[in-house]
């Protein structure tokens, strides 16, 4: 059940508490615990009325607040001990201050994000002069790889593998030459297309493989360029043969 109700949204119980403190101009070091507990519970009730799912953190906080409230109501123990007696609210106050600090920093981050977004870097490098740039390394020309990428790759490899087991492959007679011609023809119409766009119309695995081989062959012959902008990003096939060459390309 997903209700899209525009209720003032809070990141979590701490955010909600900070809201009450700000709204009512409360002293964060001397939180009127009874009042704030009441407000907090009312908010939860409102969420319930609206049939919104209440994150368990809110429930946990509600019980914490009630515990603090109960402790505050207890008569103070003997006076000599008072110095060592910690205010039941101390832990919560500490947590609120810590959270408040990062909430404010997030505001700073937002400003930095804004400023940085006004800066643009160079966007196109295709015709930069570079010698001993090995064409075979094109596939290797990717961005830095993180551990997260490694894990994602692992997951992907296994997902693909299990898929393979499920589907029966109907053997068809596809030829790499036919696919090469098909790709060349498509590149005449559009000089660049993405992998996913290209494979959209291919449904049989064997044909995808044949088409893929065709792409590799074309790349080897330097008739096409294969490029990728981000790791795991879309891969593009680009025409690398010139206008006059296009007719000759048919003859491959």
């Amino acid at each position, binding site marked *: 059940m997903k209700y899209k109700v525009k209720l003032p949204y809070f990141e979590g119980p701490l955010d909600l508490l900070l809201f009450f403190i700000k709204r009512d101009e409360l002293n964060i070091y001397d939180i009127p615990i009874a009042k704030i507990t009441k407000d907090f519970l009312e908010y939860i009730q409102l969420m319930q009325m609206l049939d*919104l799912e209440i994150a368990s953190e809110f429930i946990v906080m509600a019980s914490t607040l009630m515990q603090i409230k109960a402790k505050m109501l207890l008569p103070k123990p003997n006076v000599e001990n008072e110095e060592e007696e910690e205010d039941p609210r101390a832990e919560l106050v500490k947590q609120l201050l810590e959270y408040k600090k990062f909430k404010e920093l997030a505001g700073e981050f937002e400003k930095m994000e804004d400023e940085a977004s006004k800066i643009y870097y160079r966007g196109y490098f295709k015709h930069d002069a570079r010698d001993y*740039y090995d064409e075979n390394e094109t596939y290797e020309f990717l961005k830095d790889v993180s551990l997260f990428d490694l894990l994602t790759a692992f997951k992907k490899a296994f997902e693909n593998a299990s898929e393979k087991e499920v589907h029966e492959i109907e053997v068809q007679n596809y030829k790499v030459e036919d696919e090469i011609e098909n790709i060349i023809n498509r590149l005449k119409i559009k000089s660049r297309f993405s992998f996913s766009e290209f494979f959209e119309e291919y449904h049989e695995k064997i044909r995808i493989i044949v088409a893929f081989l065709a792409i590799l062959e074309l790349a080897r012959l330097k008739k096409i360029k294969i490029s990728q902008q981000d790791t795991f990003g879309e891969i593009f096939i680009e025409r690398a043969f010139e206008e006059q060459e296009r007719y000759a390309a048919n003859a491959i």
Partner: protein
Amino acid sequence: MENLKSIIEAIIFASDVPLSLKQLKEIINEPNKPFTKNGDQTKISEQDIKNAIDELNREYTERGSAFRIIEIAEGYQFATLPEFARWVGKLFKERTKKKLSQPALETLAIIAYKQPISKPEIEAIRGVNVDHIIKTLLEKKLITIVGRADTLGRPLLYGTTKEFLKYFGLKSLSELPKPTEIEEIMQEDDEKINSYIEVTEDEREKIPKKNGK
């Protein structure tokens, strides 16, 4: 100082595709806050743009700059001069040395998690021949031969190296995230933090599974 010349310089510089005079003209004359010459709403012509590009290139030449705006079939773009190819080439060589392709990465991941593992076993998982990739990974010293399997044909077994740990900043193999951990990270649906509202509502509706293992 905003003037036509620097604006054109900025646009061509940042564009991720070559731009034609027509495209440049459209961007500059765009109805929403177009460029104005001396407070004048005169439209900028393609010739004006062409002149500005020529002027920029003249300045680059005078300054002995390493780049120019070049014209190719699709339009104008920046490029470094051929005489610097040797240096730019070094840059790319440095960078490509460190890179791993997606297939290489997948293979490396399989080896990392399943080591010691033989080539036939890797191929059974990946469904393709991995000869070339194994060779590359060996060359990059990310994997090494750790023995032979007892199975038929006694194929070589591969495992990861110290270099591998270094590459990923790990102290030991035990620091590798477990596949189950990635499951946890990845279990969330594909909804991403794209729009503020979407996320907040989505998150609000989500019951955390913090203690729920």
